[in-house]
């Protein structure tokens, strides 16, 4: 899932300068699950903005509208009515949601309410970690199901750097060394031979380095 984190309210308030009638758009998918931009977070933000409004007299009023997925236009259409006549929309969706809403509601400024972080997993309640960079050419088959591009701080393809100590990355003692994980896993699977061969330099064209990407599934297109 896409993992995001709510922006500091201070920053959101700043971005609202000049706007009064605000809609906060929660997204019911990834950002709900990672507790950054679901209905609950949107309601919380609305409450704080209204409190601020009554104290500072900035006249801001808020309403919360939840779209099931901001990245599918039909859901935005369903919610469209609610966005009519507002001065600005704070999208609590990921970067894709914010942009897609901005496309859908051309006349209305759409402001980001969260910082989109990464593609990750819920390690435990309230903790998410990065697992994938969407590089577009998966080599997990060679690395025991642990991604060296994402989970090694240097994206090393051929083993750990000198900063690997006691299974931890030198960049942060909280971070596991990606290569230690690869090694452990392959060893467990009895497939350590997978890392003896030198992995060639990666073709980064499949990643964002090749420009904005597009996926087309031909058989469903007329």
């Amino acid at each position: 899932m896409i993992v995001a984190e709510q922006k500091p309210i201070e920053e959101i308030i700043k971005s609202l300068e000049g706007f009064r009638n605000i809609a906060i758009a929660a997204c019911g998918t990834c950002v709900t699950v990672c507790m950054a931009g679901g209905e609950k977070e949107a309601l919380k933000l609305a409450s704080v903005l209204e409190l601020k409004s009554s104290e500072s007299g900035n006249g801001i009023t808020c309403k919360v509208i939840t779209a099931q997925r901001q990245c599918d236009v039909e859901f935005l259409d369903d919610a469209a009515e609610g966005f009519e006549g507002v001065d600005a929309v704070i999208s609590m969706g990921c970067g894709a949601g914010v942009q897609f809403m901005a496309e859908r509601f051309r006349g209305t400024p759409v402001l980001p309410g969260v910082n989109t972080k990464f593609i990750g997993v819920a390690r435990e309640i309230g903790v998410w970690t990065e697992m994938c960079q969407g590089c577009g050419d998966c080599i997990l088959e060679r690395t025991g199901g642990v991604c060296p591009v994402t989970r090694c701080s240097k994206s090393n393809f051929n083993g750990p750097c000198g900063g690997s100590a006691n299974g931890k990355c030198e960049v942060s003692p909280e971070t596991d060394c990606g290569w230690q994980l690869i090694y452990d896993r392959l060893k467990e699977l009895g497939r350590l031979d997978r890392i003896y061969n030198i992995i060639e330099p990666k073709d980064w064209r499949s990643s964002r380095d090749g420009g904005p990407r597009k996926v087309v599934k031909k058989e469903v297109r007329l």
Partner: protein
Amino acid sequence: MKVAVLGNSRYNGILKEQLSKEGLSTEFFENIDEIKSISGEAGAFLIKTQKNAVEAGYVIVAGDPSTLEDSSTAQESERQVVILLDYPEESPAYMTETALTKAIRLAGKQKKVFYLSKFMRISGNGLEELYKQARNMGVAFIRYTGIDISRDNCTGMFHLNISDGYDEIGIDTFSLIKTRAAGGNNAARLSGLLKFKLDKGTYASGSSYFLSPSVTSRKGVYFLDGASAGNLGEEIIRQIRFTVSEISSNSAKTCEQTEYAEVDPGKCAFCYTCYRACPHSAMIPDYGNSAMKNLNKACQACGICVSVCPADAIKIKGMDSVVKTVPNSLMVYCCENSGEIAVNRIADEIAGIFEKISIASVSCGGEISAEKIVDALKSYEKVLYVTCKDDACRHFDGNKRARLQTDRAKEMLRSAGLDDSRIVYMQVSHAMPNVLRDNIRDLVLQRQLPI
């Protein structure tokens, strides 16, 4: 009603006998590894094995006793017993009570009892009386900061090296009664099956099960495993009796709840947050609806799921909703197990302090989310959140969650440039109304200060 007994305990025979006396049938699952899953709730568990699926009303874990019990050479004639409360903080009142009762009972049998703990809990629930009695009977209380336990495998004797930060003393004993016992080799497996948390090593987390009495955090699931090491026979029999009587009385009446969490499947994001947070394992996935579902009988309506749900999809059914009142007033959210009792005791005294005070009782501090607190500030000048003391939460972590949620609400106010002193969090015991009253008075005093 059928009772499923997991594990191969040498007390399985006694257990069966006791259960059948109460008209309960028993199904044994001696090899825990053969169990694939345990689902359902009190009154209706479904245990799937590699061979079949068995329905049972209750589950008793009578697993192979922990390592301490297993090789114990302790005998009834043993003169010395050590009771070790190894909580890192103050132990919960019920546990202190249990341990003290046990100490008194053992001392009454002319045994020398050492009572070791890191932090002494000395108030509430008639504990003062129990302490006095224990002291009078010669129980030696030792407060320790560090402990090192080793065991002689030949003799079975435990060597305890105890430090209080200044001195070290050693105690050798055959009888060691620990408050938390290892689940042995089965701990990890059991915690997975029954969704109990695991602490470091093989200890099942203190927030997952009480060892003595054998009640766990999950309704209808009982642990007989490892409550005590030393005087096995007697203790385990006591536990068996307790457990059987619990099951018997529970199965007699329906354990249907009037208050329980209800999930709106249309709003539920199926994120498993409530599942992970629920201290009673009362949330289960409902794949047909792609939403979580509440087990009404297991649910204890603590509301922790309500506060953590990111989709605002859970409500507690049967619970009074908070009525909004006029501004310039105080909103008090209080836990019904502590704050509410204390507030009621001082209701008359505090009535005149604020123009208006609204008191909302919640079934657990864990119920209130940051969102609710901030929302209340729209109608109230101040919000006071009163929960139980640390370790006294009957839903284990509700008060810790309450503190985190109030911290988050305060952080949001600060980030918006608002006064975060409008939110106050405090912990009281039901026996501390005066502390609460003074705190409310302070809130008024603060209010009168020019900002």
